[in-house]
């Protein structure tokens, strides 16, 4: 079973304790934006086979939203971090680089 450490309460939470919230770090577009920007925000997804950044909610625990860096090809977890950032912190990027040299995701690397 997938386990992620909640960066807020510190609990190693099993998947049944969590709710998957989809792709992380989306740039939001609302009323007044172009159709293309809105479509990209609403529907277009990276969906990589490999390194991926996601939102999760510790729903049956402290209730907080957080971010996780995970590999979709192996289910390996590289780390979890605060929801209050718009880009993964350097230590998460370093942890990924250690295991997946040359990785990239959108404009992060």
């Amino acid at each position, binding site marked *: 079973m*997938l386990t992620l450490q909640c960066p807020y309460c510190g609990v190693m939470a099993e998947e049944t304790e969590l709710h998957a919230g989809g792709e992380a770090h989306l740039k939001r577009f609302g009323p007044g934006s172009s159709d293309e920007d809105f*479509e990209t925000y609403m*529907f277009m*997804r990276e969906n*990589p*086979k490999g390194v991926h950044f996601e939102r999760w909610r510790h729903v049956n625990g402290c209730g907080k939203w957080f971010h996780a860096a995970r590999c979709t090809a192996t289910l390996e977890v590289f780390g979890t971090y605060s929801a209050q950032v718009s880009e993964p912190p350097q230590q998460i990027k370093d942890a990924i680089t250690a295991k997946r040299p040359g990785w990239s995701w959108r404009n992060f690397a």
Partner: protein
Amino acid sequence: MKRYSAFAIAREAARYHTGWERAWASPQPKKKYDVIIVGAGGHGLATAYYLGKNFGITNVAVIEKGWLGGGNTGRNTTIIRSNYLQDPSAAIYEKARSLYETMSQDLNYNVMFSPRGLIMLAQTQHEVRGYLRTAHANALQGVATEFITPQQVKELVPIINLDGPRYPVLGGLLQKRGGTARHDAVAWGYARACSGMGMDIIQQCEVTGVRREGGRVVGVDTTKGSIDCDKLGIVVAGHSGVMAEKAGFRLPIESLALQALVSEPIKPCMDVVVMANTVHGYMSQSDKGEMVIGGGTDGFNNYTQRGSFHHIEETIRALIETFPMISRLKMLRQWGGIVDMTGDRSPILSKTPVEGIFVNCGWGTGGFKAIPGSGWAMAELMAKGHSPLADEFGLNRFAEGRFIDESVAAGVAH
């Protein structure tokens, strides 16, 4: 290609079965094809078959990374139905269902289509209203379904428990000509027919790149070398996003793991397919006697072809309440497939930003039932540039807000 027939069996029996030929050839790729289809699953092979049969385009290669029918085509629960709410869905799924009726004769290959009947249980008042609405919509669409009472459900499915405390059966949406087919045979039958028309099915050949010149496709790079083409069809289900990236565009797709499992074989006890969407479970009995059970998808992106164990537990827990007699059954096998989910839970059959490249994906959790209709529409789209069955399923519908929303209509499971 020698035809299969009773006479052929007698002929081969008389010479100790030495004369059977391989069902399909395994050639090395040629330098160039008119059309390359990536993905030798049901949808890809059906696309190639109808390109040849309906449009006379037979200079076609079907390229497969693994083995033929080894992805979701061999990993589903073989259910066939067309009781969808939205008109474009009903049209393409009913086309598919009707093609299944004559597929064995058409392909000269027994796909064991079994229109045994399919019931979607209504286990909440919300579902009762939803399925009544679907039954009315189906009547207008020319799809034969009817809403039946709990007593009629019990007559069709004697092993069902109507009075579960959490999920009482309040009725059901019955499609009498829904059912199942042998999933591998569908892929094998199409492959044999394609090979018979002179098409090349190239297995163990991974596409590593898509070559483009001036905004249009000119060929693909593969592990068996470069192959040129005029048109390219990407029909790779869960890996659609990976292929799209190679071709230089994005898709509104997320790939998730969906699981199924089968029990030990038991004597015949249920001769219809039963779907219980409220509890994310569906069940049918295979010809071997195994109870074939499908569950729900995991909530997170996953390319591993294995799902989370707790989903099995949830599915079985709910099904045991509805079918108490299965509580002592041992489960034999469990497997997962990577399903490609779109925002509105409807497929994408479309041109792409790259001229000459077409995609057929997004069938999500319910692609098997659609194989012949999908191939029929995709072939027309690739040959003529548009298709009445496919036009509503274009990529532009997301930007235009013109959704074909089956996620709300179908509840959950497809």
